[in-house]
C-alpha cells in the first residue's frame, strides 16, 4: 500500500467536515421537503401529490408559473441579445450609458423594483393618476402585464451580460473566413456567430427562467389574481388556518422539479451540438453615424432609463410627503427618512448584523471549500462541488421552508433565532462564493505553493503566506458581491424570520403590503445606500473588479 507521510490526511478530514456540513444545511432540508410531500395532506389521507392534481388552483399555479417563466425568458432575450450585439459591434453616442446596466440590477433589490413600479403605474401610481387626470385610462398594472414588464426589466441584464461576454470572446476571424468562402456578411455572421453565442444565451436564459420561477417579491406584490407557485407556496406556509406542511412541501417540490427539468433540457440541447469554442479576438466596434446612430442611441437610452426608473422613484418617494397610503407628489419632506433612521432603525441594524455575519462566514467557507475543490481533490470533493452548487437550482422560498422544517425542533433547533436567517443567507449565496473563489484559484499555479514548501515552509503556512495574499483581491470582490445580494435577500428570510428580526427587505415588503409607500421608499433608500457604498468604495478606492466576478 502507498506510504503517505504527507499532508493529504488533514485535507481529507477537512473535506469530510465540509461535506458533512453541506449535507446538514443543504441536503437534509432538501430531502425533508421532498419526503414530506408524500405525507397525508388532507383528513381523508390523500397525499400532497394527489391533492395537487385534484385541486385546480394548484395546477393553475403551476401552469401560470411555467408560462410566466417562458414569457419573461423570451422578452428578456428580445431585449438583452440585440442590446448586447449592438454594444459589442457598434460605437454610438451615449454608449457609455449602457456600461452602468449591470449595476442597476445589482443595486436595486427586486422588492424595491416592484414597489417603485407600483408607485408609478399602480392604481394610485403617479403616472396612472397623471394620465387619468388627462382622461387617458391606463389598464391595471396588477396581474400579467405588471409581472411581465417588471420581471423583464429586472432580469434582461443577465441575458445581456452573458451574450455580451460571448460575442466579445467570439473570434472575428471565423466570420471573415466564412466571408472569404463566399458567404455574404449577414449570412456569414448568422452562420458562424449563432452557434458560438447560442450556448451563452441558453445558459443565461435558463438562469432567468430559474429566477422567474423562484421569484417571490414581484410575484407577491404584483401577482394579484394570477396564482403563482412561489406565492401559494408561501401562503400555504404562513396560512393561519392550519398551516399545511405537506402541501407546502409538495408545492416546493414542484418548483424544484420545474427547475430541474429546465436544467435537463438545457443540458440536452447543448449536448446535441458539442463543439469546442475557440476564444479569439473579438471584432472591433464599428462607428455608426446619422439616423441609425440616433435610433440606436435612442433605443439604448430608453432601455437604460427604464432600468433606472426604480432608483429615481425610490429616492423621490423617500422624500415625498405622504398621508397614510396617499402620496403627495411634489410636496417634499425629510420626515420619512428621519423616522426610519431615528424611530425605527431595527430593520437596518438587523440587516447589517445578519448580512455581515453571513458574508464573513460565506467568504471563509467558500474560500476553504474552493481550495479543496481546486488544489486538494479527493474522492469526496466531487460531492462537495455538487452540493455547493445545488442552491442555484433552489428558490429562496424552498430553501426557507426546508430550513424551517429541518431545524424547528430536535437536536438543532434554530427556529426563531437569528442564526436561521444567517444560515438562509449563507446557503443562498454559497454557489456564487465558491464559483468565484474557484476561478481565482485555477489561475494560481500549484508551483507557487510548492516553491514555498520547498523553501522549508510547511504546507498550511505556505498557503497562508503565498496563496492567500494572491486571493485577497478576488475574495474582497466576492465579499462585496455576496454582501450586496445578501442585504437584498427576501424570499428565504421572510420564511424563516420571526417577530423583531425583520430585515430591510422584509420590512419594505410589509410596508408595501400595507400600502405605506413613502416609508417603504425611505427604507428602500437606506437599503440601496447599504448596497451602493461598498461597491463604490471597492471599485474606486481599491479598483476591484466587482462585476467581472459575477
Amino acid at each position, binding site marked *: 500500500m*502507498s506510504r503517505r507521510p*504527507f499532508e493529504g490526511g488533514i485535507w481529507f478530514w477537512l473535506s469530510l467536515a465540509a461535506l458533512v456540513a453541506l449535507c446538514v444545511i443543504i441536503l437534509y432540508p432538501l430531502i425533508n421537503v421532498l419526503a414530506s410531500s408524500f405525507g397525508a395532506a388532507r383528513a381523508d389521507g390523500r397525499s400532497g401529490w394527489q391533492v395537487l392534481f385534484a385541486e385546480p388552483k394548484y395546477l393553475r399555479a403551476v401552469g401560470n408559473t411555467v408560462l410566466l417563466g417562458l414569457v419573461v425568458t423570451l422578452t428578456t432575450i428580445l431585449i438583452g441579445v440585440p442590446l448586447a450585439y449592438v454594444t459589442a459591434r457598434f460605437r454610438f453616442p451615449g454608449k457609455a450609458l449602457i456600461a452602468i446596466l449591470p449595476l442597476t440590477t445589482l443595486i436595486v433589490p427586486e422588492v424595491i423594483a416592484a414597489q417603485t413600479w407600483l408607485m408609478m403605474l399602480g392604481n394610485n401610481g403617479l403616472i396612472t393618476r397623471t394620465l387619468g387626470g388627462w382622461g387617458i385610462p391606463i389598464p391595471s398594472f396588477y396581474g400579467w402585464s405588471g409581472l411581465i414588464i417588471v420581471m423583464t426589466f429586472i432580469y434582461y441584464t443577465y441575458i445581456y451580460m452573458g451574450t455580451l461576454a460571448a460575442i466579445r470572446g467570439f473570434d472575428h476571424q471565423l466570420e471573415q473566413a466564412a466571408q472569404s468562402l463566399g458567404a455574404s456578411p449577414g449570412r456569414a455572421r448568422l452562420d458562424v456567430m449563432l452557434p458560438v453565442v447560442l450556448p451563452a444565451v441558453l445558459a443565461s436564459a435558463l438562469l432567468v427562467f430559474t429566477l422567474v420561477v423562484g421569484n417571490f417579491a414581484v410575484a407577491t406584490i404584483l401577482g394579484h389574481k394570477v396564482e403563482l407557485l412561489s406565492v401559494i407556496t408561501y401562503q400555504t406556509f404562513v396560512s393561519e388556518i392550519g398551516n399545511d406542511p405537506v402541501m407546502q412541501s409538495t408545492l416546493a417540490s414542484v418548483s424544484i422539479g420545474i427547475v430541474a427539468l429546465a436544467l435537463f433540457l438545457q443540458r440536452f440541447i447543448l449536448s446535441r451540438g458539442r463543439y469546442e469554442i475557440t476564444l479569439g479576438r473579438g471584432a472591433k466596434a464599428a462607428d455608426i453615424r446619422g439616423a441609425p446612430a440616433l435610433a440606436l442611441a435612442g433605443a439604448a437610452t430608453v432601455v437604460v432609463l427604464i432600468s433606472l426608473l426604480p432608483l429615481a422613484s425610490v429616492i423621490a418617494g423617500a422624500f415625498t410627503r405622504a398621508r397614510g397610503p396617499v402620496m403627495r407628489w411634489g410636496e417634499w419632506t425629510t420626515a420619512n427618512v428621519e423616522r426610519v433612521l431615528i424611530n425605527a432603525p431595527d430593520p437596518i441594524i438587523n440587516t447589517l448584523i445578519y448580512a455581515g455575519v453571513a458574508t464573513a462566514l460565506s467568504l471563509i467557507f467558500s474560500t476553504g471549500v474552493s481550495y479543496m475543490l481546486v488544489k486538494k481533490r479527493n474522492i469526496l470533493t466531487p460531492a462537495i462541488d455538487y452540493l455547493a452548487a445545488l442552491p442555484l437550482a433552489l428558490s429562496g422560498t424552498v430553501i426557507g421552508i426546508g430550513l424551517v422544517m429541518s431545524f424547528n425542533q430536535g437536536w438543532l433547533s434554530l427556529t426563531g433565532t437569528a442564526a436561521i436567517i444567517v444560515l438562509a443567507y449563507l446557503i443562498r449565496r454559497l454557489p456564487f462564493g465558491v464559483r468565484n473563489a474557484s476561478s481565482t484559484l485555477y489561475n494560481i499555479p500549484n508551483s507557487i505553493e510548492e*516553491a514555498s514548501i520547498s523553501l*522549508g*515552509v510547511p504546507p498550511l503556512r505556505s498557503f497562508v503566506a503565498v496563496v492567500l495574499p494572491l486571493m485577497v483581491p478576488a475574495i474582497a470582490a466576492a465579499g462585496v458581491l455576496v454582501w450586496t445580494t445578501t442585504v437584498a435577500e427576501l424570499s428565504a428570510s421572510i420564511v424563516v424570520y420571526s417577530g423583531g428580526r425583520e430585515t430591510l427587505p422584509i420590512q419594505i415588503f410589509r410596508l408595501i403590503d400595507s400600502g405605506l409607500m413613502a416609508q417603504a421608499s425611505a427604507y428602500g433608500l437606506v437599503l440601496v445606500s447599504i448596497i451602493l457604498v461598498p461597491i463604490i468604495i471597492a471599485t474606486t478606492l481599491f479598483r476591484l473588479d466587482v462585476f467581472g466576478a459575477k
Partner: protein
Amino acid sequence: MGGISIGGVSVSYAGNRIIEKLSLTIKDGAFFTLLGPSGCGKTTLLRTLAGFLPVDAGEILFGNTDVTLWPAHKRDIGMVFQDYALFPDKTVFDNVAYGLRARKRDETTIRARTGEYLERVGLSGFESRRPAELSGGQRQRVALARALVIAPQVLLMDEPLSNLDAKLRVQVRETIRDLQKEAAITTVFVTHDQEEALALSDAIGLMRAGRVEQMGTPVEIYSMPVSAYVADFVGAANVIAATTQVYASKGADVEVQMAGARIVARSVTDIPAGPVKVLARQEDVQLYAPETGSGIPGTVFRRQYLGSRTHYKVRFESDGPVLSVERTGLDHGSIQEGAAVRVVLDKARTLVVPR
C-alpha cells in the same frame, strides 16, 4: 552534503504506476540529468525526490539520511520550476529572502546573503522590482537565486529552461552550470532537450516508461547507446534492421547482414544470433563515389544544403531502408540529387543492438 541514492522506488499517480522499482545513485556534488520524452516519468521522479509525491515502495537517501517519509518542507531542497513559480506579490528581494526568513536567519545575514546571490545571477539593482517587471530570463535567475541562497543539500530543477527562447536558454544554462559548480550542490535536472542534457551534465539517466534505460556520462550516452531508443533520442541515428549468424559478446566486432550486404560493427551488449538492429549516426556514415568499389551501392534522392553542413537521404539499391547522412567539411554539398553513391559504415562507429 552527500549524494542521492534511490533504491527500488515505485511511484503511482492518479492510480497509475508511473515509476516501477527504479534504482540509481547520484554522486555527491554531481550535476545529474533525467532525460526523456514527456510522459516517461522524469518529472514524477523529481517531484518524488522533492517530497511532493509519496512512494509506493523503496527508499530515498540524501547522503546517509533516509528521507523517504519526510515531508517536502523538511528535506532541505532548493527547487527551480518550469514556470519560475515566483511569488508575484513579493519583490525580487523578498522572493530570494523567503527561504532564509523561513529558516529564521537574522536580518543582517538575510540582507548579505540575498545581496550576494542576486549579484551572482547578475540582478543587483533589481531588488525592489516585482516578477511582472522582469523578463523571462531574469525571472528564472531570481528563481535560481531563491533556490540556491538557502544552500540546500539538493538542488532540483524541473525543465527550468523550457520557457525561455533559444538564445536566453544558452545564457541561463551557463549561469546554472557556473553556480552549481561553485556551490558543488548535488543537482537533479529534468529535461527533454538532449542538447541541454549533454552540455550540462556530469551524468545522465535516460528514462523510458518509468525506468532508466541507460545511465552514463554524456559521452557514453551519445557514443555507446545501449538501445535504438537511446540512440534515436540522443542525437539522430539511423536504425537499420539486420541479422547476425553468430553469438556476439559485448564489445566485440560482429559481422551482420543488412541491405543485401555484409558489414562489421561493434556489439554494445551480449546478443544471441538472429535479428538485430544496426545503429549509425548520420554524421558517421560516409558517402563515396560509385567507382571506389567498396561499400553498399545506393542513390541520393534528397539533398538539403544547410550552410555549415548538408543533409542527404540515401536509398539502397537493394530497396532496403532509407539512410540519413550528414556531411561537413570541404565540399559537403557537392553531391547532387539522383547521384549514385557507395555507402560506407565504419566499424568503429557502427553499433549492433538487440532487436
